[in-house]
């Protein structure tokens, strides 16, 4: 009951946050030099001031900026995010068509990160300061330090050019769930997953090693429990709390963080669309993607908060 109230409260809190996000983004977008009308008409030397004005009015860019914002807001409340100026497609449609690619890529990277990081982190903590720990820490530190676009380029270099196992860019016009696409997904997925795995592993190791020194661990051993039970039952659950926090923030990279990686691998996802939208000053598209990312991050954090309570009985929301 109290949990339901907590969730409702948190969901309501999204509204003011999104208001803030939208105002800032809207302001920034309009502050950047060059508007869509100028960009579109630059290709047409014969276009004069009348054509310009006409287009402005058609795109809703003629009104004062506060009125534009209110108009945009009105649209959002009715589920209308406007349209892409050039193609006249609805923004929501563009997002829906690109979203699965981005989500799948992010999810792959995220799951890959967790699957690698949690067992490695446990191993490193149990064998603290031994060879395996030192090696895994070195690898994790490298994973964090290497810029992911560079890692991506190296993977292409090795995987596509040297080994020839992958095409150089994402296959065009292949449906997402085809073998070609899923096979190609591995490269950008690994790139995203490496960074995620590195940071999760480090947090897992640190928090686990810290828990291992607590007295309840000695008490559990004094009960005669096998070391496996001591570590995987008693220590693990206590150390997962900080990992959940990190994993939740990392889900944000599913949507927002893959922008560069999608560019490197020409992955047809939301990140690429976002960069194009910025380049083309597609105001409506930028706004919608930003809002969507915001909602996603907030929801991920909400899930993390709920997981805390599930892991640690001392945390209760009421």
């Amino acid at each position: 009951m109290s949990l339901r109230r907590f969730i409702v409260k948190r969901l309501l809190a999204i509204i003011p946050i999104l208001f803030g996000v939208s105002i800032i983004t809207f302001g920034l977008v309009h502050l950047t030099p060059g508007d869509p009308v100028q960009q579109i008409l630059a290709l047409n030397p014969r276009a004069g001031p009348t054509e310009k004005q006409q287009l402005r009015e058609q795109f809703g860019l003629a009104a004062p900026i506060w009125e534009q914002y209110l108009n945009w807001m009105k649209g959002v409340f009715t589920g209308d995010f406007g349209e892409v100026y050039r193609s006249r497609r609805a923004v929501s449609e563009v997002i829906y068509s690109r979203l699965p690619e981005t989500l799948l890529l992010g999810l792959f990277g995220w799951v890959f990160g967790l699957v690698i990081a949690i067992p490695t982190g446990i191993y490193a903590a149990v064998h603290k300061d031994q060879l395996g720990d030192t090696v895994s820490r070195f690898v994790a530190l490298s994973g964090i330090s290497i810029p992911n676009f560079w890692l991506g380029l190296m993977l292409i270099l090795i995987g596509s050019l040297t080994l020839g196992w992958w095409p150089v860019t994402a296959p065009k016009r292949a449906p997402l769930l085809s073998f070609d696409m899923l096979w190609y997904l591995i490269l950008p997925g690994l790139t995203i997953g490496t960074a995620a795995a590195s940071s999760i592993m480090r947090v897992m190791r640190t928090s686990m090693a810290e828990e291992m020194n607590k007295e309840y661990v000695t008490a559990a051993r004094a009960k005669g429990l096998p070391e496996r039970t001591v570590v995987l039952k008693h220590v693990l659950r206590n150390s997962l709390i900080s990992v959940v926090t990190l994993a939740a923030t990392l889900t944000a990279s599913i949507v927002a963080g893959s922008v560069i990686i999608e560019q490197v691998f020409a992955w047809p996802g939301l990140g690429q669309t976002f960069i194009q939208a910025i380049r083309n000053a597609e105001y409506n598209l930028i706004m919608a993607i930003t809002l969507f990312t915001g909602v996603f991050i907030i929801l991920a954090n909400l899930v993390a908060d709920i997981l805390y309570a599930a892991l640690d009985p001392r945390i209760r929301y009421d």
Partner: protein
Amino acid sequence: MALLEVEDLTVNFYTQDGTVNAVDNLTYSIERGEKFGVVGESGAGKSVTALSLMRLIDSPGHIESGEIRFKGQDILSMSEDEVRSIRGNEIAMIFQDAQTALNPVYSVGEQIAEAMRHHLDYSKSEAKEETIDLLAKVGIPEARKRYSDYPHEFSGGMQQRAIIAMALSCDPDLLICDEPTTALDVTIEAKILEEIESLAEEFDTAIQLITHDLGVIAEICDRVMVMYGGKPVEKAPVEELFYDPKHPYTVGLMSSIPRIGDSTDRLQTIPGKMPDLVELPPGCSFHPRCPYAEEACTLSEPELLDTKTGKPASEVGTNHSAACLAYSGDLTGELDYSVTVNEDSKSNAPASQITGDNQ
């Protein structure tokens, strides 16, 4: 055969500052059902001794040598599986700070039931019923309701009771109590001690009680070992230790106990502090703080001697021994102190007053 025989136990900790000799050549034994006290200041090696009995010394600590025979079997030469079948089952431990010894994310009941399910192969529901019985036995009201409570929902005293229930769950033959009441306030302390004593009686369990509190020893124990700097300095039956302490350190400890009706303003203390275990002073480790120390004390390290004959305690059967050169005749002076026994009919703890130039 004694229940537990510790022989020449030596435990070192390898730290960056050097090797800490936490326990040095320790020998003692505990009979079945006996209540054995271990007293000493912090850093005397009491807790390390306790953890050694279960072979729970963790790196950087290492059990160097010695034998720990439990029911005649050497714990130190057992396989890991064999030791595990003894831990929590035949030797159990009551920890000092129940709050940290309980895992915060599992219910108290589950943590108690865990050992029984592991050692006694109880089913989930059997273990639960047994746990509820135990909780009631250690004095937790509404035990059935409390079974699924988490540690943070228990008060400090109740947490300690839960730890006791956990230790008793598999009906151990030896119960190690490591400062079981230090974290509690005085009123609860008395109750918990009573509880431990009567439960030990009921379960016919031997106790090794570790404490720095002589009052607790007086209340519960049959025999006492006083430790200093990782070594035993005096072993005696509890009455004799209180009425007739033989080692200057014991004397110092006794006179540090404040007494009701005392007119002195300052609490008596032993001057100086425990020596650094990395670099123990030569000879008797206590000599820098000992009021009776002579040159001889800086030269040779005394072993435990029978206080009557002065013969090494390891060679003659004795129940009162002290590690002081005074008993081997190597000192020119006498241990100059006297014990006055104050027979107070209201208190059942022996109240002795020690005077002398031990300051």
